């Protein structure tokens, strides 16, 4: 279970944002996510969004069957958007100091939450409060570990001796590829 979550988190990280340079969109979040301190905050936010959207988001999901397949992810994403808006508004008006510190991370964390939850959205899961807490904790932890790993990979993917064509992002792709190869050893076939 944890391995699966870890694999998901790793893929989500590799996939959905943050690795690396890029400059488009997430660069600000990236830069802050590269620092281990910010990675902790980031992971906490992801855990919070996971908890909230697991408690809210999974409830009203339409059942499988007629058109539900397309609606379920959409509903969950909408729920996450709602949680994001609520969190951002609350923080902004109640704890502006805290908000300033995490504002750059809030949105990517919300998006990541949706990504991380997607395998569970497709299965018909309904979380009780305890299970939701466990799920959030696992997601947060896996996310934290994964971002630590990628932070450790950063200097390896950007050294002076490597071919210029591979420096930076391409090497990072290869790095994540080999790492996800290792995690694939657990499941052999499918990841999810």
């Amino acid at each position, binding site marked *: 279970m944890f391995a699966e979550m870890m694999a998901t988190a790793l893929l989500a990280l590799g996939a959905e944002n943050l690795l690396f340079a890029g400059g488009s969109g997430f660069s600000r979040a990236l830069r802050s996510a590269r*620092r281990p301190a910010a990675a902790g905050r980031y992971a906490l936010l992801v855990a919070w969004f996971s908890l909230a959207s697991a408690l809210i988001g999974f409830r009203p999901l339409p059942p499988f069957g007629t058109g539900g397949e397309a609606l379920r992810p959409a509903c969950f994403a909408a729920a996450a958007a709602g949680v994001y808006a609520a969190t951002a508004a609350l923080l902004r008006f109640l704890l502006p100091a805290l908000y300033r510190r995490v504002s750059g991370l809030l949105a990517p964390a919300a998006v990541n939450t949706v990504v991380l939850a997607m395998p569970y959205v497709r299965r018909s899961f309904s979380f009780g409060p305890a299970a939701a807490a466990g799920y959030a904790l696992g997601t947060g932890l896996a996310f934290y570990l994964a971002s630590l790993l990628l932070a450790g990979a950063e*200097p390896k993917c*950007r*050294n*002076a*001796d490597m071919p210029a064509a591979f420096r930076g992002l391409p090497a990072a792709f290869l790095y994540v590829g080999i790492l996800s190869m290792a995690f694939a050893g657990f499941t052999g076939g499918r990841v999810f």
Partner: protein
Amino acid sequence: MTARWMTCGVNLEREKEPSLRGEIVALPAPGGLPAPRTFAPLRKKKPGRARILGAAEEAGIVDELDGEPLARKLSRYAARKTRVLAAVCFDDDPLATGEQAVLRENTAQVLAGLELAAAACGAAERKIAAASRREVRRMRGACPGVGFWAAGDRYPALAVLRLRHGAERAGTIGAQACAALAEAAKGRAQCETVVTVAGDGVSRWMNCRVRLGTPVGSVLQAGVPDENPAVVAVESAVNGRAVTDLSEPVGVLTRCVLAFRKLPRRRALPCVGCGRCARACPRGIVPWMILRQLESGAPDPVFLLGVERCIRCGACGAACPSGIGLAAVVARAEAVKEGGAAPCR
């Protein structure tokens, strides 16, 4: 848990025998150098502290271990309430044997100087730090009233020794400085030094006593060098410097003149992560991490820990199987840290 002094340092192949075989050869002073200065000798049998320091100052004695004037060093030790004073009678360098030869041949002078120095800094105990246990056995009979330390056989032996006896409030001075202090008591200024001539580029390895200011070239000639050695190095084979101008004068710090047939460089490979540099460092610095930090372009001061402690012994670079010049890396890191030029993340 083993103490760090037991494991730090690097094993280098040492060749001490050839240059110790013969006696110290006194080279004639070249013309043009002024005659050695003399001044009023110390009269009393047991002179006071101030007088000894004054004589050391007057004689212009410089400690060959670190280039610090002896008078300053002794008053520093006195202020620090040094308990043990050790005369360093071994050489860090794998080829040099000057200090060892001085102890063997000028034992009485070294002992007399050590006694004066101990009196000057108020040290209760005197020690001779000899090159090995064998050397201790050999010299014990000739040195009544002093204790012995045996240096280890790993490279920065002096630093390892300091690390080992650091808790005993020990001070160290060079054997030649001791001998010079004994001479100063008789009213003679420091005017000569013992230099080892060695390396695969010379055919006669030996120790010679030369006047300060003699050109390096004439010292080298005494060892009958090859036609054209590639490198001539002074001070040390590990952390010394190459000399291109052979008319450079010999100083107290010269200590050895080494000629090598071949260039020392191997092609430097990237760090393979064996961790030997950190193990070799007697000061607890982690050179590979410093290299990694500097390479990353944005060094994190947390990981430049301890660079200011570096004593430039060069053990890290000598230990590195990839042949990376780690001593220079640490020096650069120190400059970065001190200059504040490091772009903190």
